[in-house]
């Protein structure tokens, strides 16, 4: 299976590409060569910049610095159509289908086979779609609408779409996450036959077995930077894990040691078909429990179900011994549960409203007199929290949009801490926040635990998980695959459990 492609100019390469979103450096000076006749693996933790890299290749993002070269010539993809014309096909991590249109139309949108008079030749389109599915060895009716397809079937439609391009460069961003074994094998067969035809394939996966089975060279990324590129024969899974996490656990994590008190949260047998299964966990007062795992492992879904935002099929959630009725966030709040959501812009804040209004949103009943909110009380309450959380803001009457990401997160925290919760659930508390503010959020969480609040923290950042948590629960594909004490939890052990490779220490 060893491939040693002759040194030819790479079909596509990134040269010194950088890309930032606000203060977040998604890519920093990344160079990568995709050669014809080669399958190139790309590994990295969540947030390492893989998806940004994919979107740069696809023409969705334009690099801030550096450029993309196609067959040795510098090009500027200013739109996805440009990349497509250059022979780049992309299978995105999340399917991008048109639910109202038929499967065949989804595959050939914009490139439908034409009959006389530039009319769409439906029969030819249908037959071509059937041919693609035959190559993949699946049968999906090309005439059915894409709405209602399972995630796996949607992914197969995406793969068929990419195949239909006859692409010179095929990029696959975690295409196998939802596929079964047979489907993965068929996808691999397609990728290998493309390689045989001289195409370049970029394959992104969290499953090391797949990476090693399929790829010729492997690139590791971390924190938006290129770390290494090596032939597969010179690498082991252990090497990859070390390079992916490979940084010192910073001393930015002032976790206080607290003797845990009584059990605050108890979850048993929580199940939701297709999302998570048999989830059991408990959090005690004063304890910080981290829920680690890869994106899509079902962590956010679990905490949302616990809080009652999402439904669940079976299982129980108890807070301080009392059972929470499913699907009722107000009951959870009354029981002393607070949820700081993953997406603060969409779910955590009302962006156009003022800082003080946002901060007092959860207490609008207790702050009101005769059903009317009094501005003075709101201002006083908000000012108090701004002081306690060291909020850096101009005026509290300004819109939340004027704040930096980290200070926005503080407002969300203030909003929930004001309800005096017994259990604080934080979902990705420091995503998109600069390092300094990160440490402040960590200090705050630690203090809260010190005051006896039970904290359940969903985090994709390993250093944060390892630095902050008393216990680490790792989720993999909807199930809790490992429970690690603070001593047992290392970057390697968490990463192995998160990728579903239990029982193998590095």
């Amino acid at each position, binding site marked *: 299976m060893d491939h040693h492609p002759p040194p030819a100019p790479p079909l596509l390469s990134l040269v010194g590409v950088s890309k930032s979103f606000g203060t977040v450096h998604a890519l920093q000076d990344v160079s990568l060569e995709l050669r014809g006749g080669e399958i190139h693996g790309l590994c990295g933790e969540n947030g390492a910049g893989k998806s940004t890299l994919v979107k740069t290749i696809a023409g969705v993002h334009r690099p801030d610095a550096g450029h993309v070269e196609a067959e040795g010539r510098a090009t500027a993809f200013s739109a996805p159509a440009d990349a497509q014309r250059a022979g780049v096909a992309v299978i995105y991590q999340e399917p991008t289908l048109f639910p109202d249109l038929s499967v065949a139309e989804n595959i050939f*949108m914009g490139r439908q086979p034409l009959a006389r008079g530039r009319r769409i030749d439906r029969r030819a389109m249908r037959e071509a779609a059937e041919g693609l599915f035959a190559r993949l060895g699946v*049968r999906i009716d090309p005439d059915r609408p894409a*709405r209602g397809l399972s995630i796996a079937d949607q992914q197969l439609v995406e793969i068929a779409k990419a195949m239909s391009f006859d692409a010179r460069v095929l990029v696959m961003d975690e295409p196998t996450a939802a596929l079964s074994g047979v489907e993965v*094998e068929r996808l691999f067969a397609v990728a290998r036959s493309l390689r045989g035809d001289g195409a370049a394939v970029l394959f992104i996966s969290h499953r090391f077995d797949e990476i090693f089975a399929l790829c010729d060279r492997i690139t590791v990324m971390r924190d938006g930077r290129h770390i290494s590129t090596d032939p597969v024969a010179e690498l082991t899974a252990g090497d990859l894990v070390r390079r992916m996490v490979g940084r010192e656990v910073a001393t930015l994590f002032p976790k206080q040691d607290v003797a845990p008190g009584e059990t605050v949260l108890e979850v048993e047998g929580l199940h939701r*078909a297709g999302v998570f299964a048999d989830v059991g966990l408990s959090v005690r007062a004063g304890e910080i429990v981290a829920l680690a795992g890869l994106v899509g492992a079902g962590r956010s879904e679990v905490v949302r179900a616990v809080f009652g935002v999402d439904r669940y099929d079976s299982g129980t959630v108890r807070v301080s011994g009392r059972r929470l009725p499913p699907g009722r966030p107000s009951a959870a709040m009354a029981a002393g549960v607070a949820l700081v959501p993953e997406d603060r812009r969409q779910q955590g804040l009302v962006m156009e409203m003022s800082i003080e209004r946002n901060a007092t949103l959860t207490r609008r009943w207790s702050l009101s007199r005769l059903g009317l909110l009094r501005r003075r009380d709101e201002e006083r309450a908000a000012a108090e929290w701004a002081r306690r959380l060291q909020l850096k803001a101009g005026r509290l009457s300004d819109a939340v949009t004027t704040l930096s990401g980290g200070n926005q997160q503080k407002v969300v925290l203030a909003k929930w801490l004001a309800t005096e919760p017994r259990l604080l659930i934080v979902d990705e508390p420091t995503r998109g926040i600069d390092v300094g503010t990160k440490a402040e959020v960590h200090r705050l969480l630690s203090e809260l635990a010190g005051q006896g609040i039970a904290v359940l923290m969903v985090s994709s950042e390993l250093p944060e998980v390892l630095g902050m948590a008393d216990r680490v629960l790792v989720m993999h594909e909807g199930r809790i695959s490992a429970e690690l004490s603070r001593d047992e939890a290392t970057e390697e052990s968490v990463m192995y459990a998160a990728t579903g490779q239990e029982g193998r220490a590095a």
Partner: protein
Amino acid sequence: MSGTDDTGAPAAPAPAPAPAPAGTAPRTRTRPPNGAGPPPERVEEHGGGDVRTGRRIRQVRELGILLALVLLVAVTALASPGFLSGQSVRDLLLGATLLTILAVGQSMVLITRNVDLSVGSVMGLSAFAVGLLFVSFPGLPTPVVMLAGVLVGTACGVVNGVLVAAARVPALVVTLGTLYMFRGIDFWWASGRQVNAADMPEGFLGLARISLLGIPLPAAIAAAVVLAAGWYLRNYRSGRELYAVGSEPAAARLVGIPVDRRVFAPFVVNGSLAGLAGVLYAARFGTLDATVGTGLELEVVAAAVVGGVAIFGGSGTVYGAALGALLLSAIDAALPMLRVDSFWQQAVVGLLILISIGLDRLLALRTARRLRGGGSRGA
């Protein structure tokens, strides 16, 4: 629907990592499903459930409106036999003409997940422009004046389209603004004047009385518009891309569809059709002032929605919208014949809209369930 699991991937056998020695790379295929190599000739049935369900339901959707129309006509004809007389049917068709043309244009806009509320004003502006041209330049040939009326609508459509597609202002807001703006221009221009039938040439006013094979000319024009738009939307790439844009704008960008252009064009077409409707209005009624078409926009949207065009874009056909327009017109014509109070006419239209939206929702849920059905995955 079926009792099998619909859990998707998690139900598939978990990838069983081959027992590789610690620290070494597993170089072989390590995902043997069910412990055996995949039989390559095996083909999996995917998607499960009723294969043609989606398409069938869409047809049923339009059939339902047709059925309601037939039922209404039958009941009315039984109660008042005069309803089916030749003249009465001609009146019905003529009455439905304007609404149908406007509903076709509106549907194209709705399909891209936008809306045009200014159509009533555009129609009024175009109708008055036609009248005023005849008054001011009596020598102008009728076709030139008609074309000018259509172009007035086109220009209004361009304004809407630019504001929505280029300036990225939500269509609801833009066209609410232009609704008043175009109406205001109309009032300013008319400044209280009225154009009467006597001001317009006989040849123009006679258009409505011309019949092709028993069908009034305006109705024939409307039918041609419906067929042309339906043909275009179904058979041309750019037509399908309108659906794609409305169905999932983000995905449309990713596959390289020029989204802004696809949003812009329907506004222009819709403006032109509203202009055409204004011309036909002038020819039919002959009496024109600045209030022509006031409040029509909601009836137009209602016709499209009753006809199965989704208000959130991505689905529906102009045939359905045309049927919806016909049904609403028939209700308008039938209820007085059935001696129903005029208050109830509006209530019936409202009820119909609610029923049709409820029906859509129900069908969508059922389709989704049936399409998910199967669960025959998991090799």
